[in-house]
């Protein structure tokens, strides 16, 4: 299981990335996350919406109400131009962290502290 803090920190880039592939709605987003992480990344369903709303307040994503195939009203989210820029920044940051960790965990580095 991934820790709560990391779940929280990664929610933003993950949501932006999912929406960068096209608009989507809450339940579908959750399913996608679940499938991609093969169940390792578990979000409390209720937590998703406040995060989406916050992103919307920051004008990184926008929403519209639309009818689903079944006739129910659904709120669809999509990325705004600012959101795309934010995603670029997020990507850079996460790749940076990734590079550091990859370098640190690489085979030619002494990891174990001297005892």
């Amino acid at each position: 299981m991934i820790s709560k803090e990391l779940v929280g920190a990664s929610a933003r880039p993950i949501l932006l990335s999912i929406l960068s592939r096209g608009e989507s709605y809450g339940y579908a987003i959750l399913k996608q996350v679940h499938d991609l992480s093969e169940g390792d990344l578990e979000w409390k369903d209720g937590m998703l919406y406040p995060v989406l709303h916050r992103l919307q307040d920051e004008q990184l994503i926008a929403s519209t109400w639309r009818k689903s195939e079944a006739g129910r009203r659904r709120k669809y989210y999509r990325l705004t131009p600012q959101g795309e820029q934010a995603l670029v920044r997020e990507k850079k940051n996460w790749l940076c962290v990734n590079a550091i960790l990859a370098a640190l965990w690489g085979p030619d580095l002494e990891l174990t502290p001297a005892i």
Partner: protein
Amino acid sequence: MGTSMGNFDLDRAIKAWRKGLTRNRAFFPEDLDELEGHLRDHIEELTASGLTGEDALQAALRRLGQHRLLEGEFRKVRRGRSKRAASWRSDSAWTVALIGNYLRIATRTLRRHAFFTGLNVAGLAVGLASCLLILLYLQSEFSYDRFHEDGDRIHRLNWDFAWDGREGIGSGTPPPLAAALRDEIAGVEAVTRLYPIGDVIVRRADRFFTEGGIVAVDSSFLRMFTFPLVRGNADALGAPGSIVLTETAARKYFGEDNPMGQPLSVGEDGVVFGRPYSSNFTVTGVAQDPPEGSHIQFDMLTSMPSHPQVEQFDWSWVWMQVTTYARVSPQANVVAMEEQVTDLVARRAPAAFTRVGFSFDELLAAGGRWDFRFQPIHDVYLGSADIGNRVGPTGSIRNLKIFGVVALFVLLIACINAMNLSTARSSRRANEVGVRKALGSARSGLMAQFLTESILFSLIATVLAVALAWTLLGPFNQVAGKSLSLSILATPSGGVILLGAMLGVGLLSGVYPSLYLSSFRPVEVLKGRALSGHRGRRFRSVLVVVQFTISIALIACTLLVRGQMDFFRDMDLGFERQGVMVVSNHDHRLGNSAEAFVDVLMEQGLVESASVSSGVPTTFSFEDYYKVDGRGDEQFEMASYLVDDHFVDTYGLEVIDGQAFQPTSPANRRSMLLNQVAVNQFGLTDPVGKRITYPGVGDFTVIGVVRDFNFRSLDQPIRPFGLIHESSEAYQIPNSSVSVRVAVDRLQESIAVVRAEWERFAPDQPFEYTFMDQNLEAQYAEERRLESLFLIFAALAILVACLGLLGLAAFVVERRTKEIGIRKSLGATDTSLVQLLIRDFTKWVLLANLLAWPIAWMWVQDWLEDFAFRTEVSLWPFLVAGLAALAIAVLTVGLQAARAARADPVTALRYD
């Protein structure tokens, strides 16, 4: 939808779940829609995989998270959202709700602290009312002459001259100027001239009055200016003998009758400057009374051709007796036009100069100037202190500035009160602030709360101020000599100003307290630590010092102005002014019997002395140039009266050399008395017996010297003056006055005696008299007005400052109740306690004195500049102002202190 299994109703279960969240303010309905959609998607999928509806709902809800968690997350976003105003509708609803709340708490605070509220509001109301009255006054003073349709294009022509060592600017212009401007200066569209007639008697059948407001005007007058006619038309003043009355004048002579075409007699038939003058006029129009805000005032307008003297001088560029106005075209360049006028004068004036025996070229060669300048009529009223106005009033821009500053001062003092009282009460509200902050109030919310309170204060104060101003308007109008009305407040601009003043005062008095109060840190406050309040106390002291500085300066200035006025009143003018009655012999009402009238009066028991003269102090004196024995062709300017044998006696003049006129002595003819200034300026060492030559008339022998006396306003130094015996026939003056010195303690009887004799001598002529002391007093009406207004506003300022001080004192005493109790139980006396409490305030007031004195001193030095005779500025007005302020302050604080000191220490110690 409606997935239903057994007796489980999914829709109803979801509705129930939703209802549980609806009342929670963290969720908007939209959020619930979204969550419900999510829930239904999830349930749909779960039931598709075989779960019952009930189980699916349970599983989906578990995944969604507990209410509390959910709520917390939504709330976090929620707060950010309201700050960012993403949804303005819910946001403004929130603000409205808050304002309501602020108001509710504000009114509660106001009511709970009724004493402080009262002081605060009373101070602000007085301050605002003063401001309001002064603003009305300023508004009326600044809006003179705005009612003329082409007012922005009408200019008055002023005479700008430098000649023979004198220079100046005046509103008198020569008769030919107007036509020359119209014919020769491009850009001048129309011209008109005014010629004030002076006092004449107007008669209709058996009704007669002396009229001072008759102005002769060119026929273009009614077209250039906007003085609407109620009868007749704009051509009413073309023909000789036409007269237009104001509505008031028409009522005075004709009652409700139609005056049009009616005859009216103005003055007496006669010969003026060699031309016949006919007193027969016909009413050709009725005009509305000129508005109060007009620098041109008149009761009657006559046509210019009715008065031969103006036509007589149509060649003269040196007879400066008419006022000239010009309307210029919208594109006109006035500066360029003035240059053209200079050229015009250079072409036209020299002939006129030659004709009266002077040389225009010499005038120019000697560096002199004989020019005419355009003055926009909007500037005439306030911009003519040195220029004068022959047909109406002039105002004093300096006094307006003084009043404006004083109004702001009073308002400032009131605002300071509000500030002081609010911060002073901070200790009592500190707990409130602490609790509010601990409960999550933001600083901005607290500031809004305090600002709402101060604006509410100023709202109540504004309402009171308007009521107060309304009550005081009558007396104020009397003092200020105006007829102001509050109706301007009902106009949109008036309303905006009032609203602006209200908000301005509210903000001014509320900003500092709100910043100060909202800055308390809750932990310290609730522990009771923030209250030492040194910062606040120092600030309050500064404000009190400012208040008292202003108050003391105002009191001192009032006393100084009064000092100068008293100085005028008590000054030895060099002549007797008490009990001197001046009876008008205007237009020679007494005919040839003036001397007989005087002789008869002299025989009356109540009359000490009586005299006929061509002028009396404060009024007309005849000025011309004279040559002096032994000084060659040099000419000296001298003013003079033609007087009879009794003048010196009647006015109690002191003859210090030679002798006065001897009764019925033939030697009086061609003799004169000089004043000391004349003797000095003429360079006469032994004046008696010397000859003074009036060129073109003849020689006069100096038979004596009188001590200098003030024959004009005390604004001006005494100039060379001569008393010429009337039998000398030195010049002709159409008017004279009979001065009668009567018993001061029996004035009414004396008046009756003089009146009885008048009616015997001139039964069909008006009997009009004044008293010399009143005439002198009237010269300083404006200064008196300044004094009264100063007095009123100084009193208001000190009143408001004391209200503030009372509040502060009450507060300090309240805060130190416990201390007082302890001191008292340890044996302190009442007196020592009062002293202890007064000490602080005394220090402030003394400091204010140090600041106020130089301010008042500098102001009064500047003000006195204008007077030729001025009082010595002594220390006592400053001392009195300072001591008065100190006394009032000590009294105010002392009463509070005494109350506290006398209280039972047990009660005090129980007090919390």
